């Protein structure tokens, strides 16, 4: 096999072994708590290393484990799908995202564990957390569609357990909602799509599927439309795209902070990874998928962000923004396909759009993980998530508040932070195009201002204005939590100021797609401001200039005085407008969008009411092995369907 060495073969196994240890050690919770964080950190470093080496190596690293595929000599019964692991450049890029997010989340975990221990919420988290990292890792490196499905199912199962790991009523409800909306229907759709592809191609390994689909998709409706459509619908549910989005705010909101960070920062990218592989690697650029992705991406970014604007719970606000930002990624991915499928076939704009999709996925991992961590730090300090009751933490936690401010600027696309560069590339590739794209680019740019307003509310309510609730906490959160946030804040600045570093990695990744050699040309528009990236120029001027102005005019020469507090001696905290009402006027004027969303959520609430009656039983089921057995049965059922559909098992 190409690129196979002893090191490559066994190096891929290291994270698997390390991440399984916490599961094995689960009998001793004390050893397990910190041990889980250490092992996940080490394996994350290995994952990161594998990602970088896979991306920069000349040949893909492919490792076949035939002995895992047929432990009972299944091959003799006609089971032809060997377990193939490998690192091509698409996998490697997403491994870097996974490695980075899981590394900082694990560092954060060291400090956050004390908080969870105080609340007795630790036990399930420390087992499921490394397992989720493990299954995400395996989903990304597996190179066989059949085994992808199996590992994807296990990843979904672990996610569900992680969402419910606090064992609160809301957490279990969120977990059940996740199950109802994503697992059962989505898995079946993905299984159906994969079965159809395997039948069409006669093989399940990625390389041969890509080769066959490129030829067959133009004339074979099943291979080009039906199968990708089914897989897309399943992936839409998993990544929280409209109309399968309603599990996202509950699941991200009710999970423990580093689990939310991992779900939003990395798990959502695993879905994006498969979308990218499906549409940029398996299939040629087909116009219909460009249109579908562009429309779904735009609808998601508009809906998610407008809903985030009216949230008063810090984590729900971030969860809705996760939806919105994934919408940006999907819009850019769709734009890339659209630009190659319809005249005038702009390869350059298509490359910029594809690069923007990858870049924004990477950026979203950085700033959203950081934002969830900053919300977690506030929860750690005050034990509160409501923006109406938080405040005043900027004075107590200067480092955390600085990191949160950088993340807020980044996600808002304020130049010169990283979010600005990727959003700029999305607009630059959609607005000057034809057909649908300028309208979608317009929607994306408008929504960026809504994101900005939302994060003005988020930051100033937690770190800006005076606190309403008494803060019995002084100083920064534990060092590991601050360190994790500062690492991410530094990366948000670095990848904004020097975007050519990630763009180079993205250039390598895109050589693994149908864009191939056009990538370098495509990335040239990223250099437009007198031969440099605008972000670099802006950083080189704005940072020193603002520092200079601050040093000369403000620092040491500005005094704080008592403001006008409606005649009172001190700020009357309750006279300040509540953050939940900051944008009432805007929401009132744009009520059409909100009333539409209320109608859809009303119907979901009806389902929710019936769920509530099941809750006590559901929590009991989570405590017992019955649920495990149920999921095992589901996996076997899926395998049977595929086996029967593909003719591997006798009918």
């Amino acid at each position, binding site marked *: 096999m190409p690129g196979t060495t002893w090191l490559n073969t066994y190096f891929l196994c290291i994270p698997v072994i390390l991440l399984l240890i916490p599961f094995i050690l689960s009998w001793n919770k004390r050893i397990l708590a910190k041990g889980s964080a250490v092992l996940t950190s080490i394996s994350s470093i290995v994952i990161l290393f594998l990602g970088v080496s896979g991306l920069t190596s000349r040949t893909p690293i492919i490792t076949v484990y035939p002995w895992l595929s047929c432990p009972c000599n299944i091959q003799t019964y006609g089971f032809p799908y060997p377990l193939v692991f490998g690192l091509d450049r698409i996998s490697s890029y997403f491994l870097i995202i996974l490695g980075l997010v899981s590394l900082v989340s694990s560092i954060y975990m060291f400090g956050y564990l004390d908080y969870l221990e105080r609340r007795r919420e630790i036990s399930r988290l420390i087992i499921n957390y490394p397992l989720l990292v493990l299954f995400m890792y395996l989903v990304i490196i597996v190179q066989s569609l059949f085994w992808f499905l199996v590992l994807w199912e296990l990843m979904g199962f672990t996610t569900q357990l992680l969402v419910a790991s606090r064992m609160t009523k809301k957490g279990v409800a969120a977990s059940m909602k996740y199950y109802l909306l994503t697992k059962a229907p989505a898995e079946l759709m993905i299984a159906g799509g994969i079965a159809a592809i395997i039948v069409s191609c006669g093989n399940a390994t990625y390389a041969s599927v890509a080769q066959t689909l490129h030829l067959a998709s133009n004339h074979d409706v099943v291979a080009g439309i039906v199968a990708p459509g089914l897989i897309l619908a399943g992936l839409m549910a998993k990544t929280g795209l409209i109309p399968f989005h309603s599990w996202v705010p509950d699941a991200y909101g009710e999970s423990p902070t580093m689990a939310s960070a991992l779900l939003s920062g990395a798990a959502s990218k695993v879905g994006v990874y498969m979308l990218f592989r499906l549409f940029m690697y398996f299939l040629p650029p087909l116009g219909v998928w460009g249109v579908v992705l562009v429309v779904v991406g735009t609808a998601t970014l508009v809906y998610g962000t407008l809903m985030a604007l009216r949230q008063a719970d810090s984590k729900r606000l971030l969860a809705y923004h996760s939806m919105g930002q994934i919408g940006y990624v999907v819009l850019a991915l769709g734009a890339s396909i659209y630009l190659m499928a319809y005249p005038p076939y702009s390869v350059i704009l298509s490359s910029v759009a594809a690069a923007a999709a990858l870049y924004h996925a990477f950026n979203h991992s950085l700033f959203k993980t950081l934002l969830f961590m900053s919300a977690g730090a506030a929860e750690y300090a005050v034990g509160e998530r409501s923006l109406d009751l938080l405040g005043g933490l900027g004075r107590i936690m200067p480092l955390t508040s600085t990191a949160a401010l950088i993340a807020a600027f980044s996600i808002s696309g304020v130049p010169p932070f990283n979010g600005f560069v990727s959003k700029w590339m999305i607009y630059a590739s959609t607005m000057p195009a034809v057909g649908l794209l300028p309208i979608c680019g317009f929607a994306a740019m408008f929504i960026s201002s809504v994101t900005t307003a939302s994060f003005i509310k988020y930051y100033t309510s937690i770190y800006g204005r005076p606190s309403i609730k008494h803060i019995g906490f002084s100083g920064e959160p534990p060092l590991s939590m601050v360190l994790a946030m500062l690492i991410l804040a530094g990366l948000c600045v670095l990848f904004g100021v020097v975007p050519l570093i990630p763009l180079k990695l993205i250039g390598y990744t895109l050589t693994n797609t149908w864009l191939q050699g056009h990538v370098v040309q495509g990335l040239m528009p990223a250099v437009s401001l007198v031969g440099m990236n605008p972000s670099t120029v802006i950083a080189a001027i704005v940072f020193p200039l603002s520092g200079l102005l601050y040093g000369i005019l403000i620092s040491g*020469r500005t005094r704080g*005085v008592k403001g006008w507090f409606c005649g009172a001696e001190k700020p009357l905290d309750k006279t300040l407008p509540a953050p939940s009402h900051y944008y009432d006027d805007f929401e009132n004027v744009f009520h059409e969008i909100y009333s539409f969303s209320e109608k859809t959520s009303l119907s979901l609430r009806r389902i929710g009411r019936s769920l509530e009656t099941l809750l006590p039983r559901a929590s009991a089921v989570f405590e017992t092995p019955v649920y495990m057995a149920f999921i095992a049965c589901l996996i076997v059922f899926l395998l049977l369907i595929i086996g029967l559909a593909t003719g591997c098992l006798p009918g």
Partner: protein
Amino acid sequence: MSTGVTDGVAVEQMIYTWVFALVNALVLLVYAPLLDGIGRKIRARIQRRRGPSILQTIYDLRKLYCMPGIIDGYSGRYARYAPALTMALAIMAGLIIPSFLPADTGCDLIVAAYLLVAVSIALTYGSLSMSIPYSVVGGCREASLMMASELCFAGAIASIAAAYGTLYIAVASPIIRLDPFKPSMIIAAAVLAIIAYVEGLNLPFEISEAEPELAGGALIGYGGRTLALLMHSSMIKETLFIALLVDLLFPWSILGTGPVGLVLRIAVFTVLTTFIYMVMRMLDTVYGRYTPRQAIRALKRVGLASIIAVILASIGW
């Protein structure tokens, strides 16, 4: 050898560009308050008052810059840094948006729009970090107005980009120059003019400070030189919105190149921006203030017009 010569020309071009950009930014520092002074004079004349000297705003700013900074003592940490960041972003926008001299920094409409909006963002973060209710109400209104005006601004930019296939603002050749014969471009030009008017905080859209009803709004927590920095940067931003409109509407290539072209450009730019500013101030004087809801609703209608412009531009009209 030829590569060396080409590189030399490129370096020389880059030096010219940045010298021009620096001159533009420095002149704007004086020109923006001067325009404000002209505006105050016009308002006074329409109201049959004598009014202050047109240099009064410059005197006011000088006085404020000489005073020590004052800030709400209970505010968050960022509020102290906001004036410096706001001013730095305004100067940056002044550097890259072509104004008096044709500084071809390669600026595109997105970068220009984001920098101009970033000035408002930096200010709003500061005002919402205050403990003073008026400041928070002013900040909320500023942010709401920013979202509504961005709806229109994004539409105008998208329609221009769709019509011309580029976002690049040219200073010499007419890469983007609004075509008066395209319906989409007529709407885009009108929308850009409205945005320049709204961002200049002219009545009826001046809702964030709204002094008669709020006793001061977003800026109330600042005094002395911190207030001077914020007021000054708001004036620069307002002037740059007008500059952007002039950049896109005027056919600069007819002025020619060389020293004569430069002098003509300075004259034309100054006359046009002053004229547009004066018209805006006249309108400001005759209007009453909208409530926040009315202001956002009005901008929503303009936004719908800009969506129509995008659709027309994407089908080639």
